[in-house]
């Protein structure tokens, strides 16, 4: 079973990247062993979406990885560098993955698909041009990762 879990907040500009990808993914037909989830800003509660599956693809906006609009496929160890953010509702993927490691054995195969965004814009609906342009390509890339 493969779970595709999308994160983000569409009310804050480019932070809604994962939500746009989720919308596009929902319009497609997937094999029976693939499920698509909207995790929004669920934080630690998103652990639920990482259960009962052997593979996970997490989709989110990225910062400080490269230039805006670039798409990255990362493994969880790629996030391990530097200080990890530890907070509450806004937990973020590094915290979620650490939590998963603490409670689940063996771990599913995890990939993180993200795009470097131009920036978060509070209370603004819609993505910047470069981020929007990356959506279709991201969906294509996820399809390639899932259907192998």
């Amino acid at each position, binding site marked *: 079973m493969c779970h595709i879990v999308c*994160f983000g907040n569409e009310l804050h500009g480019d932070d809604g990247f994962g939500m746009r990808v989720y919308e596009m993914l929902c319009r497609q037909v997937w094999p029976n062993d693939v499920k698509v989830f909207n995790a929004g800003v669920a934080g*630690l509660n998103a652990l639920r979406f990482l259960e009962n599956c052997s593979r996970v693809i997490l989709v989110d906006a990225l910062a400080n990885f490269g230039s805006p609009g670039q798409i990255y496929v990362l493994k969880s160890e790629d996030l391990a560098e530097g200080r990890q953010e530890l907070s509450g509702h806004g937990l973020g993927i590094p915290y979620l993955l650490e939590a998963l490691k603490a409670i689940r054995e063996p771990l599913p195969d995890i990939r993180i698909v993200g795009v470097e965004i131009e920036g978060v814009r509070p209370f603004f609906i819609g993505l910047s041009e470069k981020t929007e342009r990356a959506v279709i390509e991201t969906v294509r890339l996820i399809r390639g990762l899932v259907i192998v």
Partner: protein
Amino acid sequence: MSRKIIQIDMNRVEGDVDFQLELEGSRIVDARCVGSLYRGFEQILLGRKPMDALVMTPRICGICGTAQLNAAVLALEHLARLPVPPAAMRIRNLCLMAETVQSDLRQSFLFFTADFCHPKYRSLPLYDKARAAFLPFQGEIYRGALEHSRHIVEIIALFGGQWPHSSYMVPGGVTTPASSRHLIDGLSLLNKLTRWFEKSVIGTPLDDWLALQSADEFFDWLEAGEAHADSAIGLLTRMSREIGLHRLGCGTPHMISYGAYDDPEDVENFSPYRKRLFKAGFLNGDAGSIEPFDQNEITEHVRYSWFLPYPGGRHPFQGQTVPDYQPHSDRYTWCKAPRYRDKVVQTGPLADALIDGEPLIHALYRAEGGNAWLRQFARLHRTARLLKAMSQLLHELAAHPGEPHILPPADKEIPDGEGFGLVTAARGALGHWLQVRDGVISRYQVITPTAWNASPKDSEGRHGHWESSLIGLTVEDPDDPVEIGHIIRSHDPCLVCTVHLLDTGKRLTVWP
């Protein structure tokens, strides 16, 4: 003595809260608590149908959404004078308790105790034990809390369809009755968590723990054997006291509690006049007495907040929440400054236990005052009480099968008028004040528990509770002020975070 200003980003706390502190040497001489996120729910609700509050207000928070829903539904029931059947009150109480238990376990063992693993405490005798229990992602208690806390809110999903952000409490009751399947599944979830709590958190059966009533009984219990001393609460207590948290972070002596959990036996009275299982009140810190609580005594000030100014303080039924961001003025936060009888107050599990008259917490408070350790201890003491109360509620529901879960209102429309809903969320007193005119919401004011605690200065220049908890504190290393982490985290701060993205950049934070 040189004056230094430091800005602290409280990373592990819930959401966006910063502190700007002024230090003379290593002593804090002024503190500003900065809520850096504007939410705007009061504005969003204006002009909408009253029932929309049931869908929108649970979204205020991803942790206390059930409490927000309860406050909203109580405000609507108050306005429309609607009765609620006992079964609905039991289901509501059960779900509110489940949410609080989850939040309290996470706050205690994912956020608060992590500070005991700070390298600064390396030389303390308990350091290795503290790390083995509390180190993030590795400690036994940390991992246990991570695993066990997440399942208890499934009880809300059973009765409310989903968690978080559910809308199953409706005027007159709840949407679904308690089926035997719900009750069996709920009991199984509860028993699993209770077993872990007894084994790992208190190292003792629940009833024995709750029987401790005096400070001597408690400290004797602590020393009565390894299972007690090395339990999570034993370690938390011993480590706190080695560091001196029982002398830190007292803040304001005034406390409020709205009381918690409507009494299902009190079917005669409408909310807000219904009896509560845990009592409401005002602890007057000057007189040392507990006085009846009256919501008419609440006001909110905006003198130091980024809202359109008005003079003095206003009761929520006259209140307004109009953003007016002025970053370069002396205003400094998106929090308003709520006051009770014009006094700075604190709220939370310590206030609730004292006002309810809980004997052990009272005894410890009389001995040492309201400090950071006792605040945290009161929170975990509450967990024990709630686990027991949840079991009773499930059995009561099972003993009354087929009772109505809703008394459908005769009129589908909520009439014009005003009402309020006061509840106890995990972090303390939560209130919604609602006015309806011409069929739509004309005013909606929310005062969250964190608004009370994280309050800025008011029109008279009086500091809020957290601010006054820090002023006068001596910080050992101003570049790594772990003491501030202990004090503020003991309140379970929550200024909800809505922005979230993956960031590899570095920020200045309180350890780790």
